[in-house]
């Protein structure tokens, strides 16, 4: 038994190879979409909301990777789990945010790299909170519902409140949107590190 066995087993049990491969694949999709003159839209002037779809997919990958197949067994471990959970979430979030931001920066659409990074970080945070509340494998559900709703509701919404609840739709300069995304990630990372995902048998 080598020292690497533990991390390798952890990576396998969480499906990390797939979770690591997915964000670059999503970034490629985004780069392809962003490189088109119409931004991947089917109708000029009506673009695909890639700044929501790509972070949502990346967050779904990261959220489902938080699932523990043998959580009863995990709880009997001698070592504390929170450093592993936190490292897991931070590493995948950094990978996804970087990959998507780079892909957004390469395109011709209005979606900026910083907006993509902000939305990825905030969406992963919201997904981590969902994982603690409803279970890791279903953690994409509340976030998907929220993003779909926010993008429709934000068409006409204005005011300070909208920069908070419609944070994924806000432009780069909206400070409140950055604060909300950061708060979501901090809350999600802290909750997940402390509690871990809710055991689910769905």
């Amino acid at each position, binding site marked *: 038994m080598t020292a690497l066995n533990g991390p390798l087993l952890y990576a396998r049990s969480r499906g990390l190879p797939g979770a690591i491969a997915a964000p670059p694949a999503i970034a490629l999709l985004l780069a392809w979409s962003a490189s088109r003159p119409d931004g991947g839209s089917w109708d000029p002037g009506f673009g695909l909301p890639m700044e929501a779809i790509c972070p949502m997919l990346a967050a779904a990958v990261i959220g489902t990777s938080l699932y523990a197949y043998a959580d009863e067994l995990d709880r009997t471990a001698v070592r504390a789990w929170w450093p592993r959970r936190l490292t897991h979430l931070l590493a995948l979030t950094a990978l996804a945010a970087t990959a998507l931001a780079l892909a957004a920066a390469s395109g011709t659409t209005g979606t900026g790299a910083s907006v993509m990074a902000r939305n990825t970080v905030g969406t992963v945070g919201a997904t981590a909170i969902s994982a603690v509340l409803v279970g890791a494998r279903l953690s994409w*559900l*509340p976030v998907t519902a929220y993003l779909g*709703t926010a993008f429709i509701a934000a068409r006409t919404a204005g005011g300070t409140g909208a920069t908070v609840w419609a944070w994924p739709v806000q432009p780069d300069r909206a400070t409140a949107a950055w604060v909300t995304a950061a708060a979501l990630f901090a809350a999600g990372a802290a909750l997940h590190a402390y509690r871990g995902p809710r055991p689910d048998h769905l």
Partner: protein
Amino acid sequence: MSGVRTESRPPAVEPPAPRRAHPARGELLRGSAPWAGAAALTGLAFLLVTEADSWQGSWGETQAMLQLAAIVIIGPLAGAAGCWQGQREHRRRTHDLLAGAVRGPLARLLTAALPTALWATAGYLTATAAALLATWPYTSAGTPRLTVPLTDVVFIVSMTLIGHVTGALVRWRLLAPAFAAGAYVVLWLLPNTARETPAARHLVPVAPEHLLAESVPVWWQPLATTGWTGGLAAAAVLAYTARRRWTALLPLAVALTAGALLMQNGERMYRPDPLTQRQICDESVRPAICVRADYPGLLPQIKNALTDINARLEGVENLPARFTDLDWGPKSADAHLPSLTPYGQSVVRGRLADPERYAWEAAMALLPSMDGGCDARLEDNRVSRIDTAVEEWLAPDPWEFDELSHARAVGDTERVASIKAEQKALDAVSGRLRAMDQGERRQWLSDYFATVGTCDMDEVPAL
């Protein structure tokens, strides 16, 4: 009697048979179905609350908003939840075990899938009931249409079933969120791709924006929509579970026929709501005030907002006969009232949002049109000042841009001097109009309104 005493045994008491709960009960109360219902209800409630100004008070707008939410938010969500539920046997690796179950594949699939559909539908119907109740106190005409929630429910159930079958067929772990993203893209974008796919947009069962609010679908439109979405779902379910798979061809044929019908007819499936074409008038003032028959409750408020204008025009000749807010076919003798739609701008929850602004816009409808092709009117300073003086006399613009302050702020001294000079000249013209006695002003205004349609500036009376 033999003398043998026989003891009769007490009848054996059968232990009560264990109550067997229907398998659907467990599916209904546990698993992901309740979460899907909660997500649908929360998402819809969030949208309704944040956009309340734009629908609360109008049956049409309320139902249009609910339909948009049902198709674009709950549809992808229910499909993804169905997909997740359909993948359950893959996750539990019980696919082979269930192949030997007593119940057939169709019964098993419906037992597993319908609870998710029921929860999503329950979330939608709860939000629908709440939204209709919230709208009710602010409406003054019309009724909600029952066919709208019915077709929406069929769509939600169909999306769940299609998602379930997709999930049962494909093992991919991320299929459910990918299904949601894909469905969202198709359902949100297809209705907005009119330029490239004008016919295909009608396959998404959401009425074009503001069409549902002001139009009535023909009687067969809900049936065709139901046939299209329900037929596709039934075909998918039968193709996956039926012993005789060819039976899926029947609902598929229904779906394709209904889909072709929807694509061919397009917006012809909607006719204007009769209420939006009739008017209710108050003839007690001059000009008379007419509003659309779907907002009769606003007539007293509009009359109240226009009280000052009507008072100042009392006895003046050459005015339009009526203020009207019909969008089509107005008589040339009518002046257009500001539009009450789209709801949520001029009118919020059955009240005029800004009566002063409304009055100003109504007054502007009496004055010469600035885009009427008569440039001479704009270029003639004398007439232009007279037009502005009459506008200020009838109803000053509450949102008038303060050009003087802006010029001072940017330090444009030349512009400041020019604005001051113009303001002085305008004040002199306005002062003369105000200084007239009532009879003189009435006569002057009558002469003025007689020249509203002319491009000959010499005809405009001096002031």
